[in-house]
């Protein structure tokens, strides 16, 4: 009974929601990249850039304009989030250039980007803050109460005093789902990921669409990193992404390459995450719970849960000249 209460306690659920958001944002990015046919293993690196730049820019803006910070405390974190997004886009541009323009293997490019981002974050942190692994503490967004929802008695602990990024992320997922399902852009992106040659014949600019998919994924991975550093960590700490870029790929697969599916999967993974932090007094070792998302992903990929339906041309470079 005690255990059951813990499982649905408001504190646990609130923590689960907080842990869901970074996975969710990156997974949404992964959906856009892979729907266009480009595998983005570099999400982790783009997230790392997001964590570092998010924290660093927030810190510097708050320091440079203390007057503004007093009047509009949300300005610095906002600029920080934008910077995190921008740096995610920059690294995504690198990935797009290497994989779409030069048609190098997408996995190779992604792995290298991860190595590069980890080294760069350390280097920049030393240059800016004189230590390798940590930025100064920063102030995040002012917590908000979500209007209307906060009137529902049971929900109150979940929707009051939350980060504004949380509802924003959920809205982004809904927009993403609509864009992919209903808009011309979404249809074209999916066409390019399913059958680039056919899309090309019909006049869709394959290269441009694929660039867009990858750049969107970079922006969202950057945001995910920014959220981690600004809202959750209140500063940058080396390794704070903890492989969430990879978990996001898992959530994308689990969610069958759809934004709403990724939301469900991320929520599940976030819940596991929150739960694993709270089972100290249980007899189950916490490590077993932390690996549940990974095991679940392997099962899905192997088709034991249901058939994974990846875009047909996912991971295959496209070139007009060959074949």
């Amino acid at each position, binding site marked *: 009974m005690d255990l059951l209460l813990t499982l649905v306690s408001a504190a646990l659920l609130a923590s689960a929601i907080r842990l869901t958001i970074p996975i969710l944002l990156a997974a949404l990015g992964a959906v856009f990249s892979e729907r266009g046919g480009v595998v983005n293993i570099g999400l982790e690196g783009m997230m790392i850039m997001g964590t570092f730049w998010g924290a660093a820019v927030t810190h510097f803006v708050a320091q440079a304009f203390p007057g503004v910070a007093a009047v509009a405390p949300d300005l610095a974190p906002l600029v920080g989030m934008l910077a995190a997004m921008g740096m995610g886009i920059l690294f995504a541009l690198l990935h797009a250039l290497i994989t779409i323009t030069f048609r*190098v293997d997408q996995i190779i490019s992604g792995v*290298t980007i991860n*190595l590069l981002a980890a*080294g760069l974050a350390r*280097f920049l942190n030393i240059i800016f803050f004189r230590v390798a692994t940590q930025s100064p503490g920063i102030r995040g967004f002012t917590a908000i109460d979500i209007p209307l929802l906060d009137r529902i008695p049971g929900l109150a602990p979940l929707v009051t005093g939350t980060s504004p990024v949380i509802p924003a992320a959920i809205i982004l997922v809904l927009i993403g789902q609509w864009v992919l399902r209903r808009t011309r852009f979404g249809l074209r992106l999916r066409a390019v990921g399913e059958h680039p040659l056919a899309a090309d014949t019909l006049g869709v600019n394959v290269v441009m669409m694929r660039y867009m998919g990858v750049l969107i994924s970079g922006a969202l991975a950057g945001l995910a990193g920014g959220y981690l550093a600004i809202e959750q960590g209140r500063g940058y700490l080396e390794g704070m992404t903890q492989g969430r870029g990879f978990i996001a*790929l898992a959530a994308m697969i689990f969610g069958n390459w759809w934004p709403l599916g990724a939301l469900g999967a991320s929520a599940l993974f976030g819940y596991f995450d929150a739960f694993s932090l709270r089972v100290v007094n249980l007899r189950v*070792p916490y*490590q077993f719970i932390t690996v549940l998302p*990974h095991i679940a992903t*392997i099962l899905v990929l192997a088709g034991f849960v249901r058939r994974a339906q990846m875009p047909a041309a996912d991971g295959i470079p496209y070139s007009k000249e060959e074949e």
Partner: protein
Amino acid sequence: MRSSARFALLQAAALGLAILFGALAGSVILLAIDQNPLYVYPLMVRFNLARIDSIVAIFYRATPLLLAGLATALAFRANLFNIGVEGQYYVGAVAAAFVGFTVAGLPRLVHLPLTILAGVLAGMLWALLPIVLKLRRGAHEVITTIMMNAIAGALVLYLLEPGLLRDPAQAGTPRVRTPDILPSALMPLLHSALRAIGLEIPSSSRLNWFLPLGIALCVFFYWVLRRWRFGFEVRAVAHNPSAAEAAGISTQRVQFYTFLLSGGVAGLVGLSDTLAFFGYFDIDFPKGYGFLGISIALLAKNNPLGVVAAALFIAFLDRGAQGVQVFAGAPREVITILQGLIILAIVVGYELLTRYIRAQRKREAQVAPPLAPALAATGEGGE
């Protein structure tokens, strides 16, 4: 074959250009932080080559790297992407440590090989699930091996919990580690062998027999891939799977065994540190060799002999980074970034080169028949 010599030369040129590009980009970074590249790079080379302790450190560092590079390259050769080397060597190191401290009373001649075998088998075991799921259920090995890495990391932490493999003698201290591995399972160092051929290396060095073993494995697999029937099958499968199948080669069988071999070699990666440096497995065990192994395989174009050179090159940069940090006061991460940029440049360079060579071959093939001029003209650019 005149053209093949020319292509080899072009490949070397691409490698040189990529390193030059990395060095130039590194220079920009160095200039940005008020360091003079013309001072830093020579300092790095001098620090690395003029000191015996540096040279020994480079070879020590290269030991796990060349094994990781070999493991990745083997899988690549059969068109398989083993991102799981990272996890495979964690479990390999724990398994070896376990056999190393539990099995008592054996002579070194039996105990040490048994310990190494435990590492190899554990690495293979960790590679087994991804390859079986790929071949039987179509699960892409990139994602499954990434997941297996995370599971390996958690498993290792779990095994180091009290009551399992954690050393009870360390209770009450913050040390999270296994008991000491018995002397009979430790890898001998290279000092006496090197002394026999007139080389004296610093006594603090932990350079050990995994280095010659690793190099021997690279040479061995080079030979296997070149001369053995199995090596021929691997090449056939990688080059043209459907033609290989038509010739009676089972793609599945070849991929299965190659991936297990890759996992087995990966199981060795962590052993130089475990059995010759620490003498136990602990929570701060060195991580990341698996990912560096991917870089090394890429630099080497998956050639096992090239892997040795590429591992030494990466180790050279790593050691140089320490020299740069201590003597020039530039953060060593400059060199990490430089490594990343060189690898990116080299993969792009190789890709462009491969495409160029393919185009050249096509043109030569089209030039050959009598009606050459007309065909060559129409063949340009199209198809």
